[in-house]
């Protein structure tokens, strides 16, 4: 376990409880341990919602173990296995930087450098002094067509470069939340600068 302050207790709030009821209904009695992943997710989201830092404290894992009648260690194993569960507090904006080969070839180094410059964060898994940002290096997030990718919390910001990164972070700092997706304005993963094929087809009206 890393060194950080742990909350004294954790209880699911009404919003989480509603989601739990729905999820638990999917599993037959005796198999409720299968719900461990969704419950961890609800706990992390609730922490984000309530405290502004989306992570899973130990007390939350213990509460999940109790509810699902599992040994606590079994919950710890699952939670630590998946990279997307944060086992220590993170900033309000969790900057997840993809540096795997396609992103790297397309300039992820610039994106990383721009993040470091804007936030003052030196290493990985560290949080800026104002508590706004945490930088995490991640492996391919599966959006290589629009590489490089900077994932902020749940959203992908695509086709990033140093300049767009600076702009994005400045906006976040101002409390704005730009629209996720390609920052160059292309439609999903369509070619840059508009369509390059099927441009001459002329379909008759039906």
């Amino acid at each position: 376990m890393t060194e950080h302050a742990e909350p004294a207790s954790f209880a699911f709030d009404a919003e989480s409880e509603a989601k739990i009821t729905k999820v638990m209904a999917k599993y037959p009695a005796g198999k409720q341990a299968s719900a461990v992943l969704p419950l961890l997710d609800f706990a992390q989201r609730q922490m984000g919602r309530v405290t502004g830092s989306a992570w899973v404290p130990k007390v939350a894992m213990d509460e999940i173990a109790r509810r699902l009648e599992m040994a606590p260690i079994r919950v710890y194993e699952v939670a630590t296995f998946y990279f997307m569960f944060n086992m220590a507090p993170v900033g309000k904006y969790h900057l997840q930087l993809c540096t795997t080969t396609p992103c790297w070839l397309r300039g992820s180094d610039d994106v990383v450098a721009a993040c470091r410059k804007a936030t003052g964060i030196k290493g990985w898994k560290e949080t800026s002094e104002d508590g706004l940002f945490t930088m995490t290096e991640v492996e391919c997030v599966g959006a290589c067509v629009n590489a490089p990718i900077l994932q902020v919390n749940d959203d992908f910001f695509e086709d990033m470069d140093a300049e767009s990164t600076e702009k994005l972070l400045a906006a976040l700092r101002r409390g704005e939340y730009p629209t996720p997706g390609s920052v160059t304005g292309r439609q999903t993963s369509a070619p840059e600068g508009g369509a390059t094929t099927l441009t001459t087809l002329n379909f008759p009206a039906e």
Partner: protein
Amino acid sequence: MVKVTVDGIDVDVPPGSNVLQACEAAGKEVPRFCYHERLSVAGNCRMCLVEIEKAPPKPFASCAYPVNEGMVVHTDTPMVKKARAGVMEFLLINHPLDCPICDQGGECDLQDQAVGYGRDGSRYTEAKRAVKDKDLGPLVKTVMTRCIQCTRCIRFSAEIAGTPELGATARGESMEVGTYVQMALTSELSGNLIDICPVGALTSKPYAFVARPWELKKTDSVDVLDAVGTNIRVDARGPEVLRILPRLNEDVNEEWLADKSRFSVDGLKRRRLDSVWVKRDGKLVKSGWEDAFEAIDARLKGVAGERIGAIAGDLCDAESMLALKDLMSALGSANTDCRQDGAALDGTRREFYTFNTSIAGIEAADAILLVGCNPRREAPLINARVLKRWRTGGLKVASVGPVADLTYPVEAIGEGPAVLAGLLDGSHPFASVLKAAKHPMVIVGQGALRRADGAAVLASAWKLAETVGALGAEWHGFNVLHTAAARVGGLDLGFLPGAGGKNVAAMMGGGVDVLWLLGTDEIDTTKIGADTFVIYQGHHGDAGAARADVILPGAAYTEKNGTYVNTEGRVQRGQLAIYPPGEAREDWKILRAFSGWLGKPLPYDSIEALRDRLETVNPVFARLDILPRFGCADVAGPAGGEMSPVAFEPAVANYYQTDVISRASPTMAECTATYVAPLKAAAE
């Protein structure tokens, strides 16, 4: 049976076996790390690779591959050799080269298999990973960089110990085995982790850097710190016992050993009585054997037989108890008792005081009622058997007595004898569970017998066993769980009040003028009459010696050849591993010598002759190691009486300190501070 050919040898193995088992049946050694006969199959170390004909041309992990009819397996092809060497090379990538300072050295699977199956050198020059050590409490030491992630310890703690506290957290390069949160392992079986860990990641904390395995003299013996009769190996160097390990006995302990029995060994060196002491003018003075015998003889002069008594303690061997009983008869006394805790054990029929189902028999049970009994604390290995049975499904367990976590679900149906009445007349719902069961068991603990109405509880429990059909011709479901290794032996040889004889309570408060305590330390010595002359014969300076007028130094169980009868009634022999310290002698010899001094020599001069006498007294002593299974031929029960409504008390308050050896052990004191003290503090 399935026919399999391994390296040209045909073998028949039961369906559902794996290829590794087939290879073993053919006498072929297969290297392995993660596979363990008594744990679930993980198949993650890949050391057990073999080649299988007419299967995809790749090596197979034999431990995780089921056999098929006509399968042809090879364990010695170039492909197998190369594949195993490759696996070994990968395992060693992150394993430190610290064998010279590793306690596993000399008994390390990785060391042995690297020599047998590995390459002769390493091609790896990059940095190795390092893992932070974990603090698992006072017993198990960790050097986690050595861990090869076989997960045996994780499976053991979940499946055998029933305390799922170990796990593998994070993944890939960062994966670590541990508890994740800082905590001491709560199992009474944690020492077995040291044995099953194939490398030096989990080793014994108290034994750290003490000795190398090849320096030790190994003696097969039997444990006496509980009544299970665990088969052990005593490892000694020179005049010191350094460690105790389990020995395989499928019917008793399988291959496990409980923590108290393993880690109390440092108590064998402390607070020892190694010289003779005689009280002169109110002060104990170091003396010779003759002075002591003279003092006792002088005090005995003119004392009538009925004013002399003897109490046998919990750790005594049958030989010394018989010698003491014979000495008492020679002195004309029938005041002998081996029930120092006052338990209302009925010695009239053997079935009334033994664990008749047998330990292995638990695996056939389908309903168990615990009466004033906490097997986890009183006999951790019997508890492990119940858990083993429970894991196969369909077992219901209920308990009358203090509520406790036994590692498997237990229905708490009441605190005291009142529930027994309800079970007897069938009004309690668990009565129908017992009745419906094919193989019901009733287990009565010492907590239920150590009370004024103990005889009544015993009788009701027997009656209940009869009512629910537990006393059949093929199945004997009535069981008494003992906590003292000496007890069943004492009852077998009749170390009980003879005709008109006094029991422990009657010998207190001046009931006798001369009292011989043979390792008796669990009685309240303040109750002994002020004028009673007390002879303490034993090996540790504890309660009994503190009250004594004469101290005769005896031998601990590792220092004598002795016969012990476990709670099942299984007769087993312990062997001398080292000699008793200083002036101390084997106990039966002390008694024989004193009888000679008195001029009433006991009729045996050798342990063989004494054992012949044991067999004459009770033929069961001739039946060494074997325990015939039997049903119940006579359902007539022991004599009963009125039960009181008072709730049962736990028989063992602190698992780690129950006798003179464990009380003298610093390791057990540390366990008490770690595990028992916080619970007590929380309760207050």
